[in-house]
C-alpha cells in the first residue's frame, strides 16, 4: 500500500469516525441523564436526513437552509418523542421505558416506510460537498473534510454548553442525582427536554452529512449506524461525551483501516464493531473513559 492510499483511507476513517461520534453523543447524553438507551436514536438520525432531503427536493430550499431547518425540526422531534414515549414512564421500571424505546424505533421506521416510501431515494449532494480536493496524490471529496471540521465545531459548542453554562451545570447535576437536582429548584423536565433536543440535533447533523457522503436514503438507514454508535458510546464509557467521541473515532478508524489492510475481510466490517465491543466489555466494563462514582457515607 502506498502512503497516498493509506492517507486516503485515513481521511475516510476520520470522516466516518466523526459521523459515528456525532450520533454516539446523543446516546451517551440521554443515558447519562435518564439511564435510558434511546433505541429510537438511529431513527431520529434517519429522520434528519429525510427532512433535509425533502426541504431541498420538494420545497426547493438551498442546501444550507434545508440543513438548518432539518436539524431544528429534528431537535423538536426529539423533545416530543421524550414527552410522548418516555416521560409518562419516568417512574416505571427501567425495562418498561426500554420497551417503549424499542417500540418508538419500530414506529418511526414503519411510519417512515409508509410516508417516505420503502424505495431508496437518491440525494442531491450540494456542489460544495462534491469538490474533489487533491493534495500530493491524496484525493478526497470536500464532504470528507467538512464532516470532521463540523464535528469539532459542534463538539466544542456542546462542551462549552455542558461545562460553562448554567443549563450545562444543571444537566450534570441531573445526571448524577435527580432528586438532589429537584431540591435546587431545577426544572428537571426542562433539562431532560433540552438534552433530547440537543442529542437529536446532533443526530440530524450526522444524518444529513451521512446522506452527503453516502447519497442514498431509505427508512431503515438508521438501524445499523444507530447500533454501531450505541456500541461506540459503550466502548467510550456511556455517560461520557468525550468517551462517545473517542468510541466513534475508534470504531470508524478500526472499521475502515481493517478494510484497507485486510481487503479480504471487507464483508465482515460490521462484525469488527461488535468484536471491539466484546473485548472492551471484557477488559474494562465501564468503557474506556467511563468513570466510577464513589459514594461517601
Amino acid at each position: 500500500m502506498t502512503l497516498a492510499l493509506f492517507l486516503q483511507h485515513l481521511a475516510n476513517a476520520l470522516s466516518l469516525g466523526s459521523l459515528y461520534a456525532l450520533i454516539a453523543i446523543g446516546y451517551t447524553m440521554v443515558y447519562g441523564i435518564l439511564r435510558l438507551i434511546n433505541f429510537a436514536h438511529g431513527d431520529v438520525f434517519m429522520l434528519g436526513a429525510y427532512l433535509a432531503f425533502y426541504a431541498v427536493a420538494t420545497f426547493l430550499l438551498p442546501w444550507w437552509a434545508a440543513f438548518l431547518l432539518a436539524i431544528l425540526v429534528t431537535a423538536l422531534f426529539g423533545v416530543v418523542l421524550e414527552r410522548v414515549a418516555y416521560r409518562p414512564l419516568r417512574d416505571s421500571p427501567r425495562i418498561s421505558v426500554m420497551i417503549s424505546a424499542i417500540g418508538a424505533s419500530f414506529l418511526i421506521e414503519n411510519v417512515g416506510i409508509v410516508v417516505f416510501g420503502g424505495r431508496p431515494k437518491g440525494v442531491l449532494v450540494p456542489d460544495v460537498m462534491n469538490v474533489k480536493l487533491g493534495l500530493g496524490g491524496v484525493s478526497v471529496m470536500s464532504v470528507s473534510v467538512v464532516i470532521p471540521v463540523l464535528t469539532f465545531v459542534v463538539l466544542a459548542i456542546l462542551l462549552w454548553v455542558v461545562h460553562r453554562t448554567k443549563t450545562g451545570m444543571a444537566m450534570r447535576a441531573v445526571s448524577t442525582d435527580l432528586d438532589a437536582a429537584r431540591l435546587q429548584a431545577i426544572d428537571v423536565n426542562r433539562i431532560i427536554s433540552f438534552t433530547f433536543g440537543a442529542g437529536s440535533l446532533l443526530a440530524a447533523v450526522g444524518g444529513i452529512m451521512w446522506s452527503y457522503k453516502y447519497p442514498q436514503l431509505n427508512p431503515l438507514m438508521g438501524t445499523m449506524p444507530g447500533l454501531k454508535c450505541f456500541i461506540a458510546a459503550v466502548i467510550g464509557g456511556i455517560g461520557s461525551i468525550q468517551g462517545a467521541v473517542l468510541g466513534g473515532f475508534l470504531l470508524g478508524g478500526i472499521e475502515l483501516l481493517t478494510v484497507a489492510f485486510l481487503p479480504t475481510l471487507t464483508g465482515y466490517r460490521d462484525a469488527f464493531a461488535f468484536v471491539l465491543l466484546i473485548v472492551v466489555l471484557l477488559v474494562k466494563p465501564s468503557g474506556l473513559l467511563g468513570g466510577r462514582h464513589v459514594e461517601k457515607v
Partner: protein
Amino acid sequence: MLKVEQLSAHYGGIHALQGIALDVPDGSIVSLIGANGAGKSTTLKSIVGLVKPSRGTVTWNGEVLTGLPTKDIVSRGVCLVPEGRHVFPNLTVDENLTLGAYSRSDKPGIAADREKVFGLFPRLKERVSQKAGTLSGGEQQMLAVGRALMTRPRLLMMDEPSLGLAPLIVKMIFDIVKAINAEGVTVLLVEQNAKAALEIADYGYVLETGRITFHGPGKDLLKDDRVRHAYLGEAHA
C-alpha cells in the same frame, strides 16, 4: 408557618405515614425524632414534594404546597438538606453552590449569600474549586447546608445532618443550625441523635411507625420518661 395535616404516604403496599399532623411556627426550631423506618424522611420528602402523599395537606403561610412540583416548593423558600448529603460529586464546590441559587436571578443577593456561606464554613472557601466528591463527609455536610442556604430558604429542613460524622463536626453543624435560626430561618430537623436534636429544639415530635406518639416543647420531651427510655438510651427512673 408550616402546617401539616392528616398526612399519609404509601410506598407500594407499605403505609409509611398514617395521618400525621405537625406545626412549625415561624422562627422556631422543631425536631422530629424517631427510630429507623418511623417515617421521618418520608415526612420531609412529602413536604418538599419528592414523595407524593396519598392523603393530607401541607400548607406554608396559608398556601397549599401539596401537589406542587418540588422546584416550585423550593422556590417558595422551603428547602431540604437530604439525608446522606447528596452533594453533586462530579461538580466543584463552587458549582454546587451556584446550583443552590439556580432559580434566583438577583446577582448581588447571590454573591452576598455565597460570602455568607463562606463565612459560616471557611473550609468550603479553601476548597472552592475542588470536586465535591473529594471532600470529607463533614465537608460534604457543610456543602449540603451551604447549597441549601443558597436557595435563600425561609424554612430549612434537615434530614439526619449528624449521620456518620465525628462528634466535633456534629457539634459544629448543630451550632450552625442555631446560628441560621437566629437569623430568622425556621428549622425543621429530623434526627436519630434525639438528645442533641431535642436540646436545640423549641418543640419536638416523636414519630413511631408512621404516627406521632408524643409531642411537646423540646425540654419537656427530654425529661419525659417514655422518651428517655425509648430514645435517649436511659433506663426507667
